[in-house]
Each structure stands twice: as structure tokens, then as C-alpha cells.
């Protein structure tokens, strides 16, 4: 890529950002980001923990939307790769003396490497079959973390690794916020440029995209790799945040949670992850008291959104009058 091309791409991102900032979602995101910046002074340490977890979850969900929403590769392996990133980071830091900050990046790299064996079937298959094959792979990784107990600590998980920033939570918070925003921006930049255009073309019709002269397998592989690596980074951050990593973090339940957030937020809009994360995760925290009932609500929400708001919350209009009108027009 030439310098000129990069400059053009950056310009494009800037103008799209300016455009998007004026939309309903744009304004909401600006407010949310402002809120996030002042979170350490506004919230109690316990609340701050929650916000930090939420930020990381949003990153993980966004990276899934990047793969599943934009390319239409409906992967179930994302939570497993998120977990792989977590395990890789903390094990590298604890056993091999890698600096924790560097280990976070390496967590992403390892997750990317782990996505490679399954990428071949993912590229070849389509629709529901991608979901099936990645679900099987995710299960293999999940059982792997239990079987390889010498490395992973087995079912009880892995603890006792060095902390980030010597345990300073506020510094850690800003680090997480910065990294999450930076990676989200990076994905956004990819998506508003040619890359995102081709991704959507592939989702609509892989054959047509190929005939237009795009190297579809290469695009899909890149998308899958980038998304998976970012999930790995998110997993590494989460491991350092909650100070433990264990098999439940990469179980199918976790995957379903990510998926629910992505779908409820909206698969067609990159910012959907933010809404989905806040609504599902935030909701879960607020409703902790009502216990499992919140999961009932969640399941129902997933159904209602898929049936009536296929573009999720970010992609739907909530103009009540218009909705009503549509209802009668039908």
C-alpha cells in the first residue's frame, strides 16, 4: 500500500466518522464514551470493575460482529478464541516471564494462530454449516483446557499470574479504555473502507463478489483472523481484569452470551455491539437480584429481536408512529 492510499483511507474514515457522529447512534456513542472517560471519578471501585468488564465484553462482541455480521461467517468459536487469548497471555506472563503488556498482544497473536486450523472449513462452507463446524472446534478447545490441566490448571482454572500495572485499577482502567477504543476504531476504519464494502458484498453473495474480481478467500481469511485476534486480546484483558481464567470463560454459554449481545445490538451496524453489551451485560448486573429470571428475559429478548427487529437495536427505528404505520401497512 502506498502512502497516498493510506492517506485516502484515513480521510475516508474521518469523513465517515464526522457523518456518523451526527446520527442518533453517533450521538449516543459520544455520550457513552464521555461517560466512560469519567467513570473512575463517578463510580465506586466495585462499579468500575463492572464497567471495565463491560468494555472488554463490548470489544469481544464487536470483534464477533465484525466476523459474523459483516462477512456473514457465523462463528461459534469466538468465545473459545477469546479464552485462548486469555490463557496464552497469562501463561506466557507467569511461566515465561513475558511482560504482561506484551503478553496481551501475544494473546491476540495466539488466538489468531488458533483460528487458522478451523479457517479452512469456515472459508469453504457457508450459512449454518459455518456455525456447526466452529461449534465443534470450540468444544474441542473447551475440552482441551480441561484435559491439559498441567498447562491450564484444569477445571478450576489458572490464577496467580502477575498483575497489570502492579494492581493499580485506575491506570488499568484507562489502559483498557484506550485499547478498546483503539481496536474498535481500527475495525471501524477497516469497515468503512473498501475492506468493509467487499465484506458486505461477500455476505450478500460470495459468488458475485468473486466475479467482480475480489479475492474472496483472502478477504474472508483476513476478516476471520483479525476478528479472532481481537477476541484474543479481549480475552487477555479480561483474564488480567478478573485475575483468573477458567474453562467456563470459553464455554458455549459464554459464546451464546456474546451472540445474544451482538444480535440484540444489531449485526448490520458495527456500533450494535455497544448497545448489545450495555443492554445485556448491564441489564444482567442491574438485575443480579432477580437471579436466573434475567436469563429468561434474555432468551425472550433474543427471540423478540430476531423476529421483529432483525437489524437489532442499533439498526432499527424506534419512531413509534412509524412502527405503528408499518404495522397497519402490512
Amino acid at each position, binding site marked *: 500500500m502506498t502512502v497516498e492510499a493510506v492517506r485516502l483511507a484515513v480521510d475516508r474514515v474521518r469523513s465517515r466518522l464526522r457523518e456518523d457522529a451526527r446520527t442518533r447512534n453517533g450521538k449516543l456513542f459520544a455520550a457513552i464514551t464521555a461517560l466512560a472517560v469519567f467513570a473512575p471519578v463517578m463510580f465506586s471501585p466495585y462499579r468500575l470493575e463492572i464497567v471495565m468488564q463491560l468494555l472488554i465484553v463490548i470489544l469481544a462482541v464487536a470483534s464477533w460482529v465484525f466476523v459474523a455480521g459483516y462477512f*456473514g461467517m*457465523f462463528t461459534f468459536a469466538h468465545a473459545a478464541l477469546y479464552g485462548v487469548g486469555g490463557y496464552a497471555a497469562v501463561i506466557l506472563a507467569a511461566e515465561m516471564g513475558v511482560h504482561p503488556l506484551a503478553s496481551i498482544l501475544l494473546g491476540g497473536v495466539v488466538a489468531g494462530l488458533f483460528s487458522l486450523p*478451523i479457517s*479452512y*472449513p469456515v472459508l*469453504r*462452507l457457508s*450459512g*449454518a*454449516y459455518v*456455525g*456447526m*463446524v466452529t*461449534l*465443534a*472446534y470450540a*468444544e*474441542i478447545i473447551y*475440552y*482441551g483446557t*480441561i*484435559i491439559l490441566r498441567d498447562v491450564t490448571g484444569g477445571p478450576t482454572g489458572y490464577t496467580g499470574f502477575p498483575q497489570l500495572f502492579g494492581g493499580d485499577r485506575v491506570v488499568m482502567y484507562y489502559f483498557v479504555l484506550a485499547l478498546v477504543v483503539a481496536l474498535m476504531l481500527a475495525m471501524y476504519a477497516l469497515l468503512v473502507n473498501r475492506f468493509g464494502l467487499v465484506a458486505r458484498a461477500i455476505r450478500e453473495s460470495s459468488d458475485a463478489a468473486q466475479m467482480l474480481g475480489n479475492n474472496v478467500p483472502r478477504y474472508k481469511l483476513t476478516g476471520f483472523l483479525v476478528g479472532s485476534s481481537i477476541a484474543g486480546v479481549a480475552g487477555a484483558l479480561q483474564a488480567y481484569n478478573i485475575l483468573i481464567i477458567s474453562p467456563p470463560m470459553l464455554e*458455549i454459554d459464554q459464546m*451464546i452470551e456474546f*451472540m*445474544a449481545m451482538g*444480535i440484540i445490538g444489531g449485526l448490520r451496524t458495527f456500533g450494535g455491539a455497544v448497545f448489545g453489551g450495555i443492554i445485556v451485560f448491564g441489564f444482567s448486573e442491574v438485575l443480579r437480584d432477580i*437471579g*436466573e*429470571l434475567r*436469563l*429468561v428475559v*434474555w*432468551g*425472550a*429478548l*433474543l*427471540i423478540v429481536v*430476531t*423476529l421483529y427487529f*432483525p437489524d437489532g437495536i442499533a439498526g432499527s427505528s424506534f419512531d413509534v408512529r412509524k412502527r405503528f404505520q408499518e404495522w397497519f401497512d402490512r
Partner: protein
Amino acid sequence: MVSLGLLAQQIVNGLFFGGQLALIAIGLTLIWGVARVLNFSHGAMFMVGGYVGFFALGFTGSVAAAILASIVVVFALGWVTEFALLEPMRDREEFDIASMVVTLGLAIFLENAILVGVGSRRRAFPALTEEVWRVAGLTISVQRFVIFLISVFALAALFLVISRTKLGLAIRAVSQDDQTALLMGVRPRRVYAITLGCSAALAGLAGVLLAPLFTVYPSVGWYPFLLAFVVVMVGGLGSVRGTLIAAMGLAIVRSVSTIWVAAESAMVLLFAIMIAVLLINPDGIGGWIDG
């Protein structure tokens, strides 16, 4: 060196296990074959079957009544699922994914609604019989044998319905070409609902039959679902014959491999087989034998 006796015992265990697997998996493959739905709530239907059976047994004291109640209630659940959740989306381009997500939502909903409603306690389902037979050095649990027989019976009934009856003809027609089936006077919506009902009823039957082995609790359906999922993939989604062969084969593989390795490793083996089959031929075993 493994003794031949142990090997034979594990093969017999595998065979019985295969019958159970087939019973769970056949509904999953049926509904994909006919309606292109990968039903993620299949495990939840299994679970509901277990609970209905448990409570029905408590009320009536009759195992037959418990089985009947499970079949009827879960059939209705499948029917309603089709009309309320799947039918409205049928014209969508990404129906295969949307239906996956909606049934996943349903699974979460059902599992946790039960959790909230009746608690997470494991309910022990009384064994049909504790008796064992010893034949030629093999130990055979009579209960497992009976379960196996009922499974075979249920599967045979399903086969007969599909291959011999007018309903079966309509089901096959809709699965091959629903538009043309309409022109013959078939009502595909009804066929989908009946098929989903039957598929669910089979899961419900499995749920109550296996309750003495698995006990009954809200998340009991996931493990059998995952196993059935592997079976269905290896057998070839939509192929009834492939699914039967895969159920038997994989159950024996699992059973025999546990002589040497832990249960988790056996699961890894099954999932690896599934990925390999999907890679070689996405239509699975069914792709070879039906094609």
C-alpha cells in the same frame, strides 16, 4: 493389552448407547431435512420431556402415562414453536441462521424458566428395573436393553410413517420442493408444524426414557444435544439413514475409546471426527449412501 471381554462389553454398551443417541439425533436431522432448521432447542425439548415425565409419574405413578404425557406435551411445544417462532421468518433469506438464533433463544428461555419455576435440584427418576442379565460373560442392564428396544420401536414407527403413509409423502414432498408440493394441494405450513412436533416429541420421549440415567435438571439437555449434533453432522444433516449409522458408529467409538482415554478426550475425538467429515463431505455419511 485389553481383554477381549472388556472390548466386547464396551461394544455392547456402545450399541445400547447408540440406540439412545439415534433417538435424540433423529429428530434433529428430520427437522433440518424437512424445514432447514438447525434446532438448538432440541436439548431443551429433551429436558422438558424429562420434567413432564417426572411430574406425570409423580401424579399417576404409571411409567406409561409419564411417557405418553412427555410425548404429547413436547409435541405441542414443537408445534407452537413452529407457528410462533419459525413460520414468521420463513421467507427470510438468512432463515437458516435466524432459525438457529431463535431456537437458541428458546433454549435459554426454557432452561431458565424451568430453573426459576422448579429450581435447579436434580430430580432422581426411578429406575425401571435394577435387574441385570449375564450372557456369555457380558453384563447387560435390563433397563438399558428396554430403553434400546423402545428406541428401535420409535424409530421404526417413524420410518414407516415417512415411507408408507400419506403424511410421510407430504413430508418428503415438502422437504424436496415446498412450492411444487403446494401445487399438489399439500399444506407445507401444517407439514412443518407436524414435523417439528414429531421431532420435538422424539426428543421428549428420549428425555423421559433417559431420565433414569441422566436424572432431570434444567441444563440436562445440553450434553445430549451436543452429542446428537455431532451424530447428525457426521451422518449428514437431513439423512435419516446416515444418522442411524453415525449414531451407532460414534457411540461404539466413544464407548470403546473410554477404555483408554478420559471422557473429555473421547468428546474431543468425536468433535474432531465431525470436523473431518464436514471437510471431506459436508453431506456426511448420508451424502454417500443416499446419493
